[in-house]
């Protein structure tokens, strides 16, 4: 054994490690399974998932409800507004807090208030995990009390009212993408008179 090792020492010292090196390189470079799908690029790491552009214009995404808002079940009232829009209220699962739709006509919704059904709770993180933290938070709520806060994403056309301690979301507001000032002016009736953004 010793003689053998001595005689072929050059092969053992250089040759075999070289063969291993070649084998390893091939293993790394060649896929194990040629039928494997091409690798899918991983999303860019981020604290929030940035939705891709949909290729739709703002006008396109102002998708009307497929049924007339006047034919939606649970309609409680209809009121003409000074800006020629109409405000519709609908029965919700929370007493004294109806769903609201403000519409230009019976198919074009400009604002929707969806009151959370207590049987299907929504958490603040259901929004923030995807969209990141909101740029605007207003403390206090006329209906839900001083502990509630309104979280506004004007660039997404989204706001919601929630209790930051319990994480419970009470309702969400959907509207055209706008500025925070415009949201507060047009749809911020639940925000106290002197809000603290």
């Amino acid at each position, binding site marked *: 054994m010793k003689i053998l090792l001595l005689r072929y020492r050059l092969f053992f010292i250089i040759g075999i490690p070289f063969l291993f090196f070649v084998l390893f390189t091939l293993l790394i470079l060649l896929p*194990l399974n040629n039928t494997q799908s091409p690798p*899918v690029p991983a*999303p860019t790491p981020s604290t929030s998932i940035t939705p891709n552009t*949909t290729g739709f214009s703002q006008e396109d995404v102002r998708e009307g409800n497929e049924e007339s808002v006047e034919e939606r079940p649970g309609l409680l009232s209809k009121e003409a507004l000074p800006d020629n829009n109409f405000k519709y209220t609908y029965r919700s699962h929370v007493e004294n807090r109806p769903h609201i739709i403000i519409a230009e006509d019976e198919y074009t*919704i400009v604002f929707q208030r969806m009151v959370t*059904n207590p049987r299907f709770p929504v958490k603040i993180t259901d929004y923030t995990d995807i969209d990141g933290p909101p740029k605007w938070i207003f403390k206090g709520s006329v209906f839900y009390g001083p502990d509630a806060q309104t979280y506004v994403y004007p660039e*997404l056309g989204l706001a919601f009212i929630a209790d930051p301690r319990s994480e419970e979301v009470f309702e969400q507001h959907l509207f055209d993408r706008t500025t925070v000032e415009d949201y507060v002016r047009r749809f911020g009736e639940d925000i106290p008179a002197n809000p603290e953004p």
Partner: protein
Amino acid sequence: MQKVLNIYIYILLGGAVFFISQIALGQTATSNCVVTKVGNPGGEPQLPPGCQSNIDGLITPPNLQEHPVMKGYFRIPDSEDDSYRLITSGDCLYGSPELISVIYTVAKKWKEQYPQGYLFVNDLNGPDPPHKSHKWGRGVDLVATTNGVDRVADITENFGPYNRIATVELGKMFASTDKILNIWYNDAPVRKAVLEFANDPKNPNRSAGMNMEWIRGHDNHFHVDIKLEPLLSTWAPSC
């Protein structure tokens, strides 16, 4: 000499560890959602948890009929197994073959998962108003049920008790066709779950980069758009 022998043995051992780890890692990376059939078990084996919503390939329904005038538009056929019910009519039944295949495939998968369930398929292309984006052969509105009683993709509960878990599942099924551009639906936990699925590289088919957006009025159905290039000619038919 002993020193040389030791180095050689270390190299051999290191090589063996590297080699084995390459094989082990390679197997793990390619077998997350693969089940190997042994013998002839009869029926499809269960996929591991987390792989239930995956769809491997689209099914195109047989005998698609092209619209006599609008080239590229095909009529979604009536379902032969009650996996979906058409609640629209006329020219609103026409869309691209890709869109019809996505609906058809998901409906089949849904039926497999819920034998008493089915999809309600509303307008593909449709009039504007009320639609603004059903005019390129890539969009459809739909809801579903798992048992004929509950409502999937309809949080309003106006027509039956809401099934949120199944709604997430339906969203993931669509995502796993790998063809989805976006789903519009206004229930935040559903949106979060479906987007996390679509952004998870572990899911082989997931419509990576798909979107779910807040759109007013979309609390009582999914609006689904597929990736379609090029879009079909603009057509907003009445039905």
